[in-house]
């Protein structure tokens, strides 16, 4: 009845304001909050799946002309913080932090970006540039690293094939 609303009012008065102290104090930020995107250039293999699944076209990979690597751009102003890039990233290189503080002045509109350089490795044999493979992923594919495997890791696919053929050939000759 009418009285129940007065009960609510009384309780409200008694409990005091429930207002979050922000912007004058700290606020609650859950760990899983999907905020600004960061990229770890160490573990990125430049496969581009993040750009493919990105609905807002917020991710762009640009190949450097000298072949030394790739520029990785994320523009926060069209990112929808959906987390698909993180979900589909094979090496967990792209990640959504819980940094939600995005407000900025309009003159900084185009500066709101992440820019990372994804360096390509060079083949230790022929020094052709090749996509860098993070160690964890190679271990996942090939199992426990041996010295022999370590050598193979540093080769480009072409040289790796040749090397494998040579070794295989050597085994046959033995």
């Amino acid at each position: 009845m009418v009285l129940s609303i007065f009960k609510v009012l009384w309780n409200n008065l008694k409990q005091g304001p429930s207002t979050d102290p922000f912007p004058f104090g700290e606020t609650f930020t859950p760990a899983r909050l999907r905020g600004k995107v960061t990229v770890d250039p160490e573990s990125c293999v430049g496969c581009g799946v993040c750009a493919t699944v990105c609905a807002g076209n917020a991710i762009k990979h640009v190949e450097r002309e000298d072949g030394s690597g790739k520029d990785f751009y994320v523009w926060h102003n069209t990112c929808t913080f959906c987390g698909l890039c993180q979900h589909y990233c094979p090496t967990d290189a792209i990640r959504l932090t819980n940094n939600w503080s995005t407000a900025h002045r309009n003159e900084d509109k185009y500066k709101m970006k992440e820019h990372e350089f994804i360096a390509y490795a060079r083949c230790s044999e022929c020094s052709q540039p090749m996509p860098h493979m993070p160690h964890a992923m190679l271990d996942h594919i090939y199992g426990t690293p041996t010295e022999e495997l370590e050598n193979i890791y540093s080769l480009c696919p072409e040289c790796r094939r040749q090397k494998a053929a040579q070794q295989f050939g050597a085994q046959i000759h033995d």
Partner: protein
Amino acid sequence: MSNTYTIPVGPLHVALEEPMYFQVDVKGEVVQSIEMFAGHAHRGMESLALERNFFQNIVLTERVCSLCSNNHPLTYCMALENIAKIQVPERGQYLRVIADEVKRIASHMFNVGIGLHVIGFNTLFMHAMEVRETMQDLKESIWGNRMDISANTIGGAKYDLDDELEAYLRKTLEELKKPVEEFRHMYATHPQVKARTQGVGILPPEAAVEYGLGGPVARGSGIDNDVRKETPYAAYDKLNFNVVLGEGCDVRSRALVRLGEIFESISLIEQCLDQMPKGPICCDPLPDIPAGQAVARSEAPRGELIYYMRTNGTMYPERLKWRVPTYVNWEGLRVMLDKAKVADIALIVNSIDPCLSCTER
């Protein structure tokens, strides 16, 4: 004051969350006729969907509307899974139900709250919104966003619950029951709220059938049309729940149906937590999407949502069409607003839980 005059409501009107333009002919304070002009939120999404690949469309469909933002990608993924015969892991199905019901609670709470705001009852509105905030925190803690939770992906769910979050979810739901019950009691018995909502915006059941209305709007007039019962999807076939029906056919009845559904949702989530097996949450890797066509239906907070998809073997859909619940409910307004008072227009429009961005895409 017997002369008839026209008042424009909208397109940018404070009572409407969204831009819709009504032209209301009134005589004194009584509505004579109403004309609706839509299109302000038309973003051409159906054509955009054809330019985006299947992954991008998960996010695109989520942006159809942020209040039922879980159901759009869910139904979209279901249509795609029907075409490609992808079996979603069991845990993923339960997680989908949890996300769905959490969104439903928040959406219903918001709608009833805004209804109170429209009649100027700000204290109770704020009370409702404070209760809803616990749901918002829940969404933010589990999925990472307060509105677009992005819980689904093709083949399953994206975010798993660990023990800590599961305990948190249970605790929050337990704490939710009491304030919602109190709120429902107050909504039902406060004399002023009753005076404003009872007998307002009458929708006879026959009209609801004739116009093909759906969701809580039709259920407020006693029509049982819950898709979760009719054609169960996700894990709904393994869960027990009642379809809440109302008899008043008015604004109050619709609000009480929504508030009743909140309790069903709480029970559904609790059942999910009890029954949910361990295991993978998402099917991985994805098979190729063959050419084909499929229809998928689900129960969004506002009613029946249907997706029609046609694929041609590429990564892009050939046709993606969806019908949102509000789309049909707009026409039902003609019945509800007939001979209504000007003061009640905003309230009645709010009672269908209008979603313009859904309607116009």
